[in-house]
């Protein structure tokens, strides 16, 4: 079950959902319309799941940055979201999809307990100019079934990300 606007508003008021910064007009009928942050990271070499790959960080200028097909851009949400009660799912919105932009690479789930600025895995179908803090997608909140476990208490990777996180899969494969 997906929370409606009124249910999200109620959960925000009761502290079961945190969205920071929060703008009430960004609540849509069953989601929160999040914004693209100010920086991105790109990789110049072949990536290896078992190694940390060097990256270059780009700052998005006010006049925008043209994203090119064939490259992976790690971006970040402007907002930090957190819930110890609901699972979260992030996606683009129809406007962004209509521009040929993927905002994540097949990994939309935020577990219960995630407290993060979400790292975005951006890929484009054709060159497209994007701007800092533009509306970029939707986060939905899902009711959980069963006893809760928290991502925080598991002590795993990416528990309190404030910026872009590159993959730390190499920690598992070392």
């Amino acid at each position, binding site marked *: *079950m997906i929370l409606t606007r009124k249910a999200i508003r109620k959960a925000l008021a009761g502290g079961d959902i945190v969205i920071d910064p929060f703008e009430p007009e960004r609540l849509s009928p069953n989601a929160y319309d999040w914004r693209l942050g100010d920086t991105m990271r790109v*990789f110049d070499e*072949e*990536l*290896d*799941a*078992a190694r940390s*790959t060097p990256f270059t960080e780009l700052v998005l200028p006010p006049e925008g940055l043209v994203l090119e097909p*064939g*490259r*992976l851009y*790690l971006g970040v949400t402007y907002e930090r979201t957190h819930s110890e009660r609901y*699972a979260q799912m992030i996606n683009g919105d129809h406007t962004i999809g209509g521009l040929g932009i993927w905002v*994540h*690479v*097949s*990994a*939309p*789930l935020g*577990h*219960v*307990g995630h407290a993060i600025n979400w*790292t975005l*895995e951006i*890929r484009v179908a054709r060159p497209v100019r994007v701007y800092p803090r533009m509306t970029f997608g939707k986060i939905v909140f*899902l*009711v*959980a*079934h*069963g*006893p*809760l*476990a*928290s*991502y925080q208490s*598991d002590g795993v*990777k*990416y528990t309190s990300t404030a910026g872009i*996180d*590159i*993959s*730390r*899969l190499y920690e*598992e*494969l070392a």
Partner: protein
Amino acid sequence: MILTGPEIAESAADGRVAISPFRPDQVNPNSYNVRLGPTLLSYRDEIVDAYRPNPTETIELPEEGYVLRPDRLYLGHTEERIGSDIYVPLLFGRSSVGRLGLFVEITAPIGDIGFHGQWTLMLSPVQPLRVYPGMKIGQIMFFVSSGEIDLYEGKYQSAAGPQASRYWRDRVAVAS
């Protein structure tokens, strides 16, 4: 409603969910981490035809890893056999894998109630990427369904290893 990790573990123990092999340390707060099986299939022809069976080549992943190329599509499979006759499974990549630019499924995360088998993964990297057999590559989550249940009886039932698209079989069935 999405199952919590403790509920997934309990369901795996009492049979509401079947995950084999099952390792408790692969349970997350709302999902279960699945591993990449040792075999990949890749289409041989430059143009894949939706209406015809397409020839594939088999790639066995070596321990030292194998580099996936952006201009190719690789069909992989989960090491685990997974299914449920009660909950709806959804399979996605893990964020650690997404951050390496690897698509683990392509626009088809939703499974059917009653499907049991190894899940085919649709692997497509944005930039060249080295992957390893047995690496934890994806996450499967389970949703509570609403309504009377009618189990899956489709063409990929009991899949073992990666399955190439059998769209052509539906096409033949419709044409005859």
